[in-house]
């Protein structure tokens, strides 16, 4: 995968044109990966509710 785009100018020299558009999918992937990892992190870190049901005044669970 190329990081940059190049062209040859009128003097036969290789000149930099810009960044390679192949990188676009890596940047999109980085955003997607961050989101997925944060969803997992937030789900794991979410405070757990107390497991035992609370007894009501009338004695029902």
């Amino acid at each position, binding site marked *: 995968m190329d990081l940059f785009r190049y062209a040859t100018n009128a003097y036969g020299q290789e*000149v930099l*044109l*810009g960044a390679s*558009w192949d990188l676009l999918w890596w*940047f999109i992937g980085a955003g997607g990966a961050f989101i997925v990892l944060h969803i997992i992190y937030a789900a794991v870190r979410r405070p757990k509710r107390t497991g035992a049901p609370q007894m009501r005044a009338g004695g029902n669970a």
Partner: protein
Amino acid sequence: MTRSDPKRGRADDRVVRHLLPDRLYHWTMAASALALLFTAFAPILGWKFEWVTAHWIAGVVLAAVVVFHIVRAVAWQDFWSMMVGFQDIRDAWRAMRQTLGQVGPSPDKPGKYPLPQKLYHWAIAAIVLALVVTGLLMLLKIDTPFWRRNPYWFSDSTWGVIYATHDLCAMATITLVMVHIYFAVRPDKFWITRSMLRGWITRQEYLSHHDPKRWAPSDGQS
């Protein structure tokens, strides 16, 4: 909804987080940024159309609102509320230790902006400033109603660096916008999104998420 619903808050129970000029700035910047991303990348992805005019006009709008924001942040807002300080680093360390299950003091509540928001702000600020500077230079290469093109200001190699910087920053903007929209639509962060839409948070949200000693917005200013 009753007037005392804590999720909506009564008018006298609201804390102003973003004044109208700041919200208008945010949404103008968002619209111009999305227009710039669309006109930049849709043709690369195969949707061919005459994109240059819309792109440079949206870029000039973005540059104008960024200048507005910088002037306003320095002259009228609490500029230092966005700076990363010792307390932010200490609280991030404490939060990390707590996440890893280690004992120790809990992190304090932040001021107006928690550390992740500050880091995001400075990341997008650096990238947008680089985009604005390189984009304004690239205007030298196109004819507009206001000027004629003059591509000979810089050598080919310098233009290459300008274009590569613009390209990389534009692609990084996609990553940051994805992350920004993700947090904006998360239910647990929607109180922040609402504050950017309507300007306020409830007093309960203010006391739950902020340290009044570090952010006291009683004067309605940010």
